[in-house]
């Protein structure tokens, strides 16, 4: 049977990807951030998940205001890096796992989560930057990926409680997949940041620290953070953190923190990373 063994929460700041792509990770500006990613990459190499479900948001790449799916799962065999205006990132094509992805979609819809199913979905920095963070610059990504795109740009985004419940349903789906696969879920985005307006550059380290702490200490609090609290306390783009709650919902109740890294700034953002493992 498939085994969902761990979760990762990480920021997906485009500048982090650009630093990798343009060989800037050892510059004084970026080095402290990338030094902290070292142990996470070692963990990834050691654990070798077969499949990673990456929960991320599309930033006007595959989707736009023309069509705004709240939850869209990619079931294709591969996903091309998107052109976000610079030309596509020169990173490996993302390989999917159609059988598991379809199984999860079917299970979720029977479980009353009405998913959008995507057979063609270019993936932008929201998905490829976490791969760069965790895997560096390999010739091919070391795992299959199931993209789960969440609308966090158009208000109202899905509530934290719904995201957590979706994570639980994903866990049930993975648990019932009849193939020996080692599966991880990554929740991406955040941490506190605001890219827009006169308040651009807003960062709230105490909020972020409490969020990281409560992924293990007080899930109930995190699940109940509302839209306005996210926008006010974590910045207008900090509401991306609901995507970490899908990851959290997919884990055991008593999942343990095994690694954490936090750094300000990455571009205009507070960057965080956490690894949680089921016991």
């Amino acid at each position, binding site marked *: 049977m498939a085994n969902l063994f761990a979760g990762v929460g990480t920021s997906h700041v485009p500048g982090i990807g650009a630093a990798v792509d343009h060989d800037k990770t050892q510059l004084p500006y970026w080095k402290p951030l990338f030094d902290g990613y070292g142990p996470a990459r070692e963990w990834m190499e050691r654990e070798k998940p077969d499949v990673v479900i990456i929960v991320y948001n599309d930033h006007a790449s595959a989707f736009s205001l023309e069509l705004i799916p709240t939850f869209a799962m990619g079931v294709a065999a591969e996903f091309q890096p998107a052109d976000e205006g610079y030309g596509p990132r020169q990173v490996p094509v993302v390989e999917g796992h159609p059988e598991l992805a379809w199984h999860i979609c079917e299970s979720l819809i029977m479980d009353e989560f009405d998913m959008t199913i995507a057979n063609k979905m270019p993936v932008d920095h929201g998905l490829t930057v976490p791969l760069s963070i965790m895997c560096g610059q390999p010739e091919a990504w070391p795992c299959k990926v199931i993209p789960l795109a969440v609308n966090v740009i158009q208000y109202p985004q899905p509530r934290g409680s719904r995201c957590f419940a979706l994570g639980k349903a994903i866990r049930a789906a993975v648990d019932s997949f009849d193939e020996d696969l080692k599966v991880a879920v990554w929740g991406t985005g955040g941490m506190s940041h605001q890219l827009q307006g006169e308040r651009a550059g807003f960062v709230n380290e105490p909020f972020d620290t409490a969020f990281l702490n409560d992924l293990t200490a007080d899930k109930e609090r995190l699940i109940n953070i509302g839209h*306005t609290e996210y926008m006010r306390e974590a910045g207008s783009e900090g509401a991306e953190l609901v995507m970490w709650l899908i990851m959290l919902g997919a884990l055991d109740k008593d999942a343990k923190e095994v690694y954490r890294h936090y750094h300000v700034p990455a571009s205009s953002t507070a960057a965080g990373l956490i690894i949680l493992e089921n016991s």
Partner: protein
Amino acid sequence: MRQDRPYSNIPGTYVLDPQHSMQGYELNMFCMSLNKPKNRDKFRLDEAAYLDDFPLTKEQRKAVLSRDWLGLLQLGGNIYYTFKLAIFDRRNMQYVGGAMSGVSEQEFTDMMIAGGRPVEGNLYTSEEK
């Protein structure tokens, strides 16, 4: 549609809510069009002529042509869309962040290195100096 919302008193923040989305749809979709290399070439050749294909308001059109980064948000733009125009200009997020908050790119970058815009004074409009 309800205008007064619980997040209305967050300073310097333009939420892409239903009202904002209706106001900015065409503007944001213009920005979205710059994802395609062919469109970027066309826009580079003659910005004003390219904009004729999008039903923007006079104010939105002016804000695009003059790169009024804050004005674009006030006219319905969303940063993930308007940033595509910044990418077109080869500007980074620190430049645009500075332009929206009235400081230079270097000052904005320095503020981020020093830990970002502080929480104190920036949670409620009533706290603003």
